[in-house]
């Protein structure tokens, strides 16, 4: 598998489909111009097929205690989507799924960034309900019970999740 920036392999994105129209539309039409996110493509070795895509953005997790607010720098995985034909598929000769491989590669990419360029100690994302178990398997923790109560209505159907790097 090879990891490339979307801007370097953009003609390939038109044939990427993850089964969610909104995400497909984002990756095909908006990701390239989204100044708030950098999109990576995970490609087959032949560089012809995109296995998965992830968009990363700088963000933070805010805590408050004794009237003092603190922001813990974090990287948000704004989007993560796996090509329909690779969902549930295991890597040849391995037990690992392509989806896990791509997600873990995303975490490694983030750590390369946070180790070398701009520090952050956490990663977070908003999961659709049916992807929650996948993210738990990948080491993400559910954030819902820790969330500021007033924020709950904003996250209808989304499950906020985080990981300590």
């Amino acid at each position, binding site marked *: *598998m*090879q990891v490339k920036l979307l801007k370097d392999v953009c003609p390939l994105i038109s044939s990427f489909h993850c089964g*969610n*129209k*909104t*995400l497909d*539309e*984002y990756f095909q039409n908006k990701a390239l111009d989204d100044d*708030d996110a950098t999109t990576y493509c995970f490609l087959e*070795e032949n560089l012809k097929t995109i296995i998965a895509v992830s968009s990363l*953005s700088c*963000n*933070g*997790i*805010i*805590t*408050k*205690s004794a009237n003092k607010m603190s*922001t813990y720098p*974090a990287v948000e*995985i*704004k*989007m*993560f989507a796996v090509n329909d034909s690779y969902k549930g598929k295991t*890597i040849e000769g391995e037990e*690992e799924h392509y989806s896990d*491989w791509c997600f*873990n*590669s995303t*975490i*490694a990419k983030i*750590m*390369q960034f946070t*180790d070398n360029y701009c520090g952050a100690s956490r990663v*977070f*994302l*908003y*999961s*659709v309900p049916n992807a929650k178990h996948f993210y738990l398997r990948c*080491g993400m*923790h559910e*954030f819902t*019970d*820790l*969330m*500021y*109560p007033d*924020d709950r209505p*904003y*996250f*209808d*159907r*989304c*499950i*906020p999740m*985080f990981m*300590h*790097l």
Partner: protein
Amino acid sequence: MCKKELEGKGSEQGGIKMSVMTKPVNVSLRVNEKKTKDFLSVTRDTNAMLKRFKFLKKMELRAGKTEKDPDVAFLSGKINDFEKEIEER
């Protein structure tokens, strides 16, 4: 991640199906004041991280990259860090 499609009045007029995020754009996560300790108590699962990074390195080597490749060197460095961290516990 989590988005839903809404077909609002504006979208009907414009003939375009709008996609609206169900969360405000670029909003940070805020921790419940009473749960700050719980949040901070979640630390890195180094054993799981080590396992994942070893697998990533194995796959990079399987693809023909060498130890000198910057991506492989980074993974090796992290693997060493994780192993050291586990040893020091």
